[in-house]
């Protein structure tokens, strides 16, 4: 395991920016999650670290080496691709053994068997080991592709939305399992996801990307509670943060044009009048869809509350996040 440092990394594809001037330190043993919408440069970052793409500018350091001149094989990274990329002509066992048999690792046969069996057990695919890789369901393929990375002990694991096509239960199981494996190996892991629960529960650090730029890097708590822009604020949080013009409630610092209110940052019982549009019962909580002076707002309430449509509620902000016209945070 090793520390990975990105220095001013840039990559364009023709006139399309992949990533622009990204600098980031992934500490040894850290679990770093990259967040961002499609096209923000998350996958490009992984590919630059792995050596599948060549950076236009900037450097990648893995374990104290500048890896600019190294091939992907020499960089000692493991990667889980979003589209699984299992070798279709091989069985599951052969797929899992493939990296161990490489000329770089040349693992002895008995060790391969032991490692493959262990990983298969953890990922609950032991019964499928002799199947062809193409004869699996999507979730099984994804687990095999995670397993193909986990059989190795590389400097860093790169994972591109590895849990995205699993069903909810398996996703939760594997999330816990992945975190456990990472913690017990002390593995360094760079993980791309859209899923806020994955980001919040697994990450030691979160990096938020926008149009190829790294806009904020910090602990999950920092990103959630102290976002430095409206963009970052809207990346985390479910339901999404409510964005309202600053003059709806007033009492904001000078220069504020819009405020961000997380659903839990809305106090009920005092303040402005809002109308209930709809109540969603989620079991552990209720979601209230309100309109306030024509602006839709979502907030949460305890599961016992039930309001008929059209009920008027008084609401007030609690610790709103203030942003200027460009979306930057005003503190």
């Amino acid at each position, binding site marked *: 395991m090793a520390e990975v440092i990105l220095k001013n990394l840039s990559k364009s594809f023709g006139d399309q920016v992949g990533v622009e001037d990204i600098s980031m330190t992934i500490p040894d043993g850290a679990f770093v999650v990259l967040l961002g919408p499609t096209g923000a440069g998350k996958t490009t970052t992984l590919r630059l670290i792995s*050596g599948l793409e060549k950076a236009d500018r900037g450097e990648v350091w893995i374990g104290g080496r500048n890896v600019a001149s190294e091939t992907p*094989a020499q960089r000692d*990274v493991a*990667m889980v*691709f979003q589209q699984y*990329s299992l*070798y*279709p*002509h091989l069985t599951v066992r052969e797929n899992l053994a*493939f990296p161990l048999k490489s000329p770089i690792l040349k693992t002895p046969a008995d060790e391969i068997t032991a490692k493959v069996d262990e990983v298969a057990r953890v990922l609950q695919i032991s019964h499928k080991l002799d199947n062809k890789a193409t004869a699996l369901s999507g979730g099984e393929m994804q687990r095999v592709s995670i397993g193909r990375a986990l059989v190795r002990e590389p400097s860093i694991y790169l994972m591109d939305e590895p849990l995205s096509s699993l069903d909810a239960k398996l996703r939760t199981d594997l999330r816990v399992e992945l975190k456990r494996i990472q913690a017990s190996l002390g593995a360094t892991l760079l993980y791309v996801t859209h899923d806020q629960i994955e980001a919040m529960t697994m990450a030691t650090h979160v990096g938020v990307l926008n149009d190829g730029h790294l806009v904020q890097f910090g602990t999950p708590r920092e990103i959630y509670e102290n976002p430095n822009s409206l963009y970052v604020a809207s990346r985390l949080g479910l339901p999404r943060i409510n964005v309202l013009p600053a003059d709806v409630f007033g009492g904001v610092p000078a220069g504020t044009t819009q405020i961000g209110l997380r659903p839990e940052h809305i106090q009920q019982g005092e303040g402005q009048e809002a109308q209930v549009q709809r109540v969603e019962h989620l079991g552990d909580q209720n979601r209230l869809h309100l309109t306030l002076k024509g602006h839709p707002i979502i907030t949460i309430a305890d599961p016992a509350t039930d309001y008929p449509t059209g009920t008027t509620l008084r609401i007030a902000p609690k610790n709103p996040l203030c942003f200027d016209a460009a979306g930057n945070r005003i503190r």
Partner: protein
Amino acid sequence: MSSFSVTEPTKRTKWFAGTMVIVYALITMLPLAWIMMTGFKSPADAISYPPKVVFEPTLEGYVNLFTTRTRQTEEFLAANPPETWYEEIVREYDMVIAGPSKFGERFLNSVIIGFGSTFLSIVLGTLAAYAFSRFKIPLADDLLFFILSTRMMPPIAVAIPIFLMYRQLGLSDTHLGMILLYTAVNISLAVWLLKGFIDEIPREYEEAALIDGYTRFQAFYKVVLPQAATGIASTAIFCLIFAWNEYAFAVLLTSGTAQTAPPFIPTIIGVGGLDWPAVAAGATIFLLPVMIFTILLRKHLLRGITFGAVRK
């Protein structure tokens, strides 16, 4: 069946499709069947009118194909009774077997040149197609067009320059010369077909292999090649069929050591009259290798032809 199904054919469509296939198969196979039958006819039966469908089979055509014969005096024939079944066949015409014909050699030449050029076309074609498919090559489209353009005129149009070049280089009537020539003609087909197949193989497989600790060539060998097997097999069949059947260049550039079967078989006609059964026997044997090769690879061929037609 009571309910209508989009995927399940009805009895009537099944019956209709079956009939069509059988009729088509009969039409295409009739000439082949006729050639094979002629190979077992006597020369008289072969040219009888109306043509004979029922006849007494004889191996005369095959004996004539593989041997050269000379006419002998009655005294000689009486003094030397036939020792084998094929000598007996020849004796009916007051002839004796003088020795083996050149058919065996020519057939072997066809095998060496046909399979040799196919192998070379496939090896070079696969590597070139992989490069065109995966790497940024300057002017790749122009190069591909240039490669294809070599097929745009009938090869025989350049027969004379090639003939002169081969004479200068000492490649006339050599196995190497014919292998190179057929490879040159086939390689454009091979590159284009194989590029299509390799394009269909997602790059992620190789990328995964690169990260899993393999070099580019190892990734190509261990991951791309197995998946391109279908394309390689069908391309190989096309290449072999061309090289195997090629006639014009074979006539022009070979006369002895490297002569293939196609120019040799018609020369039988000139030796001692129109020996149609021997020609037919030669054609039958000549067909076998391609037939066997195609049957062995037909699973791939079928998939190869329909490959890419259905997107996953």
